[in-house]
């Protein structure tokens, strides 16, 4: 089984986000970057499927700056076999150009499965996975929390509002991973050492400009300071009163 996993380098979820001087991007000074958390589930699932099949190859593909090599190495340390960095210093906010570059890279790769995280935690567009599937003409199930692959068919469950959708599909296919799909492994020291020697190809990504331009990036409106209504259960009456008559939300 040959599996591609598309991953992204993103600011850590605990990072404080500051707007850069130009007012159009984040100030990356001092920001820690990590492998997108949802992509960890995708990498783990690929490794599990390969291990279950007893043979196969897991290729990690990323679009991003040179520093994304480090992110790819993280996935290689988890156990992926090879990496490809499609180098682009600036990746815009329109997911379509990104999907086009990935689709072109994956098209003739002979992949049985292409995995993504359901979204990147930086721009949360949920877009690139389903777009790549459309461009490649492959079936796609997004935000998958349970996956079974047997022979050349698969069954996936995805959480929707108030229920779980069960979807059947044939391979090759595109799957985007949600939390709950598995428990991603931590790279072991041996894996980290081995990852340094694994092949990582770097080539330039020919990204189209896309159809979205940034007017500005702004910090969110500060919430107005609230108040402590009181201490302990005796403060409950005052709270209910405030919710009814002041905030008018009850």
């Amino acid at each position, binding site marked *: 089984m040959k599996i591609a996993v598309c991953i992204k380098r993103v600011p850590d979820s605990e990072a*404080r986000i500051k707007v850069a001087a130009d007012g159009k991007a984040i100030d990356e000074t001092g920001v820690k970057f990590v492998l997108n958390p949802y992509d960890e589930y995708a990498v783990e699932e690929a490794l599990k499927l390969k291990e279950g099949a007893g043979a196969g190859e897991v290729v990690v593909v990323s679009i991003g700056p040179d520093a994304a090599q480090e992110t790819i190495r993280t996935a290689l340390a988890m156990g992926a076999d090879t990496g490809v960095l499609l180098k682009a210093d600036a990746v815009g906010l329109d997911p379509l150009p990104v999907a086009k570059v990935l689709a072109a890279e994956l098209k003739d790769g002979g992949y049985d499965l292409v995995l993504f995280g359901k979204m990147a*935690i930086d721009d949360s567009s949920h877009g690139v996975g389903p777009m790549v*599937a459309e461009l490649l003409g492959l079936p796609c199930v997004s935000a998958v929390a349970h996956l079974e692959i047997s022979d050349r068919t698969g069954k996936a469950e995805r959480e929707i509002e108030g229920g779980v959708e069960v*979807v059947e599909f044939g391979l090759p296919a595109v799957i985007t991973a949600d939390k709950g799909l598995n428990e991603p492994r931590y790279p072991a020291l041996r894996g980290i050492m081995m990852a340094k020697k694994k092949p990582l190809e770097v080539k330039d990504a020919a990204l189209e400009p896309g*159809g979205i331009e940034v007017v500005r990036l702004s910090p969110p409106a500060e919430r107005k300071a*609230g108040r*402590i209504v009181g201490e302990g259960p005796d403060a*409950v009456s005052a709270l209910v009163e405030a919710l009814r008559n002041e*905030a008018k939300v009850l």
Partner: protein
Amino acid sequence: MANVIAVLEQREGALKRVSHEALTAARGLADALGGEAHALIVGPAGIDAGDAATYGADKTFMAADDALRLYQADRYAQIAAAQVGAGGYAAVLVPATALGKDLAPRIAAKLGCPLAADVTSVTHEGGVVVTRPVFAGKANYTLRITGQRCVVSLRPNAVMPAEATRSPAVEAVAGASGDKAAVAKTLEIKQPERAAQDVAEAAVVVAGGRGLKDAESFKLIEDLADAVGGAVGASRAVVDAGWRPHAEQVGQTGKVVSPNLYFAIGISGAIQHLAGIRTAKTIVAVNKDPDAPIFKVADYGIVGDLFEIVPRLTEEIRRAKEG
């Protein structure tokens, strides 16, 4: 003059509230562009198009087929792209729900146009302009679409549905049935044992954190949620501990929520959690630590033992609602 179309979401043959929100946004954008607002409904036969007209649709296109009762991604995308392509729309609005987050990028890819996902506002200033929270709300992009058309998915609860009644005009469109077999097939929707509102769509959310001490204590959260008619939410810590399902997680690796009223019970307020609740209208915090970061964003706070406070709160809210 350019028209706008909203692709609506139905469940069990009825339009969801998020569809009214998408229509309201489409109506506003169409008015700004001097065009018409249209609706596309994909689903089983018998859906009331008058519901779309009530929220401002000048015309409603219906792809009615009982085989489209559930979300069949490939067919839905095919139908939507064909309709949008034929109609020459400036913008396609889709609710940013589980369905819409899957459908919107497919439509954009088929049409070769940009996607602005999970936006909280859509306007027109020399082009379609959207507000797009990123980093789970730690910053907001204002973006302008430079292309001739675009797909925009709209965050639930970001736009208040407003009636703007038009006389219903309905046109049937082909259901894309025979020409291409669906490549992925949705078989069923499994319902949870206890019917629950979704945390991202609910108008009231009662969320619990590590302060609850164990999974069993979430009964207190469920009771309060029942009393206020809200959804149960959870912090990352308790989801990671396996006390609650991921579906309920609020924050940067869970759901970003914008309810009218948010209760944070025993949640100290990690950065990634606070980011996910920033657009809630009213936040109430109950925590034993007066210095917990949650109190910096809460509109109302009570300091103390949640095991004493929450049952009293549930009781008083029940009484207030009865009275």
